[in-house]
């Protein structure tokens, strides 16, 4: 009956259609029979070209020691890595044994129930091997959800102040006198200049990218503020945040504006930095490396110093960026993955290679005594930038993780933008006058964030 049906259909088709159908069947068969690349070995996905280069260089050595588990490093850029990782976690599509994740990508991983998080919980391993005490404590915070650690921290990322030593020294300013931001702006004020006499400021004492919300975060965290408490509760409208936002509003806008607006990740921003648009900018250790590669002609003109504190005796650093390495629950070789992860992130050899290539300092405290961190860096006028970053590393603030981190930084940055409009409209840069508006705007931001968080039925048990 069925044969008769198909025979009848084939008879009713024209030769052309029969040919196309046949071609389809043949090509589908060929594709199905093509050999598929083997997926054996230990696979790691990374999103950064420098990291991929470092890990690939390690592959021959690893493969010699583990001939049954060859190392396969795949470089997958940001959004693609996030999509593939989440698809794997959500739907069980293949994922690597180890995945390197940046801070901006981790929130979504933590949005669901604890048992559905696609990374293995490393808390017990870290405790059993005594690594919790050996690694810079604050470096764990972005990778911790509901008390469980899901990744090895790659870095510390202390933020330093990068300044134009040539201009500052030519003006006879002694940066040794600077302890607080108030000191900084008081001493640097003479450098706030209209250089060509057209009535517009051409040089600011400090610059950040005003639309990039991660710069507000640098100041908030340094001053003891932030977005979430360790339990994950939002703290956007804390008294500290209100105070800092009011001060930032006055520095960013109004008649006494002190901070310029340059996106230092773009060619145009770098050009302006080179032309002296700003005296200084905050930058983490990774940015120190990036700047020296992006703006080589400025070698010897920059120096770094600890960030000025918000108050005397206060914290002289902050934190910016961050990466972790997690072992996926789907990995068939969790022990080998753990061994590899520790080697990549904590071994003195890899720590040295990482620092030399990127200026990033290791989160492993036992590596901090290594002498390569003391090498003078000709780009930064011969300063030992590694040592200077490490001196600030213990003070790097913690950053409790939350699936709502992206929303939180957007809401606070939006509040800051509105506060700048208030400062311009009311022609004031006085933080005391801006504080009531800062409080009002942050109260609204907090309400909006709480409303978003309250919708999440999966985190309901973990919230207040």
């Amino acid at each position, binding site marked *: 009956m069925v044969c008769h*049906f198909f025979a*009848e*259909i084939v*008879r*009713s088709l024209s030769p052309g259609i029969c040919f196309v159908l046949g071609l389809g069947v043949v090509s589908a068969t060929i594709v199905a029979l093509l050999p598929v690349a083997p997926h054996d070995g230990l696979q790691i996905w990374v999103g950064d070209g420098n990291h991929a280069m470092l890990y690939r260089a390690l592959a021959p050595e690893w493969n010699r020691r583990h001939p049954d588990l060859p190392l396969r490093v795949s470089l997958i850029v940001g959004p693609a890595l996030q999509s593939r990782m*989440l698809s794997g*976690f*959500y*739907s069980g599509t293949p994922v690597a044994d180890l995945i390197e994740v940046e801070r901006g990508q981790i*929130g*979504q991983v933590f*949005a*669901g*129930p604890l048992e*559905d998080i696609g990374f293995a919980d490393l808390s017990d391993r870290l405790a059993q091997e005594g690594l919790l005490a050996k690694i810079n404590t604050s470096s764990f915070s972005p990778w911790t959800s509901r008390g469980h650690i899901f990744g090895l921290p790659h870095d510390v990322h202390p933020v330093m102040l990068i300044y134009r030593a040539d201009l500052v020294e030519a003006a006879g300013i002694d940066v040794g006198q600077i302890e607080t931001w108030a000191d900084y702006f008081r001493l640097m004020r003479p450098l706030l200049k209209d250089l060509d006499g*057209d*009535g*517009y*400021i051409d040089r600011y004492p400090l610059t950040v*990218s*005003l*639309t*990039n*919300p991660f710069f507000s975060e640098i100041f908030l965290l340094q001053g003891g503020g932030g977005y979430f408490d360790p339990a994950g509760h939002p703290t956007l409208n804390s008294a500290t945040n209100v105070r800092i936002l009011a001060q930032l509003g006055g520095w960013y806008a109004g008649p006494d504006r002190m901070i310029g*607006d340059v*996106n230092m990740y773009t060619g*145009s921003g770098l*050009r*302006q930095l080179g032309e002296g*648009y700003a005296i200084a900018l905050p930058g983490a250790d990774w940015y120190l490396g990036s700047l020296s590669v992006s703006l080589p002609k400025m070698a010897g003109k920059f120096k770094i110093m600890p960030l000025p504190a918000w108050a005397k005796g206060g914290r002289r650093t902050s934190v910016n960026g961050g990466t972790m390495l997690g072992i996926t629950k789907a990995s068939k070789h969790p022990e080998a993955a753990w061994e590899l992860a520790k080697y990549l992130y904590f071994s003195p050899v890899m720590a040295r290679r990482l620092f030399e290539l990127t200026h990033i300092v290791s989160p492993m405290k036992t590596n901090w005594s290594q002498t390569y961190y003391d090498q003078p860096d000709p780009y930064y006028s011969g300063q030992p930038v590694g040592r200077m970053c490490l001196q600030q590393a213990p003070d790097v603030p913690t950053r409790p993780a939350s*699936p*709502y981190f*992206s*929303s939180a930084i*957007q809401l606070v*940055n*939006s509040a800051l*933008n*509105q506060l700048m*409009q208030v400062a311009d409209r009311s022609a004031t840069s006085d933080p005391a006058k801006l504080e009531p508006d800062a409080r009002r705007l942050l109260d*609204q931001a907090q309400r*909006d964030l709480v*409303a*978003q968080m309250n*919708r*999440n*039925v*999966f985190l309901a048990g973990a919230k207040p």
Partner: protein
Amino acid sequence: MKSCRPHSPWTPWLFLAPFLALFSAFIAWPLLRSLILAFEQTFGPRTVTYVGLLNFRFMLHDPMFWVAVRNTALFAFGTLVIQVPAALALALLLNRPALRGRALFRLVFFSPTIVGTVFVGVIFSVLLERRTGLVNTLLHGLIRSWNPDFAWVDGFVMPSLILASLWLSVGFNMAYLLAALQNVPSDQLDAASIDGANAWQRFWHVTFPAIQPVLNILVLLTLVGSFQLFDLPFILYADSFGNGPNNAALSIVTYLYQTGFRSGDLGYASAIGWVLTLVLVAAALLHRRLSRHEEAGS
């Protein structure tokens, strides 16, 4: 010619089968699934909770959603009011036989459409950059009092978006209208001239009614396209993930993307998507009714 072989009643279905399979797999099922998703909260397909109308109720009180609606509506209005008349003006200009180099001008005005939104976004961000951008550098060179830090993109978010969109799409709309203009019966225009009609009267009473069906389609396409605003702000305001200063560039689709793919709230993103769909369908139906009425009247 009548077939000499009898056909099975299944034969038509066999021919329809590829379309039906693809349509069901890639259009019908995803649509249905996204509708179901709008009533759920998920963490991947394996962890799903039915939340009823919670997503829609939240939307009513979500300030960011309403900011996105306001921005998108402003953009759509600005685009409609500027882009369609500008395209018509260009088409009328380039339809004049006396104009020399018409083909070159047509290509020039149409070329931004070919290069695409990302290119236009990048070009605009470079052109309008503070201090180092071509526009500010030029203006400051010409007018000493011009602020070299003038924030075109950050200070004038909606005008920047509308201008970039105009540059991108005006040539595309112009091409449609040019085709329509070339189909206006010349004998009617000649007759109007003989009857003493001036240029405006010829345009209003002869040309405009003839191109009105194309204009109606363009208005609808521009409206739908404007409500789908996503890539331009994403490129121009990459620093803030497409939100722009003070969320002034946040569009409905950008918010949908951020909700679904940055926050992972696919249920809420689906709800936003369905509301957007319903708004667009309602706008299209209203537009269709109005244009039918106008065409019947003319």
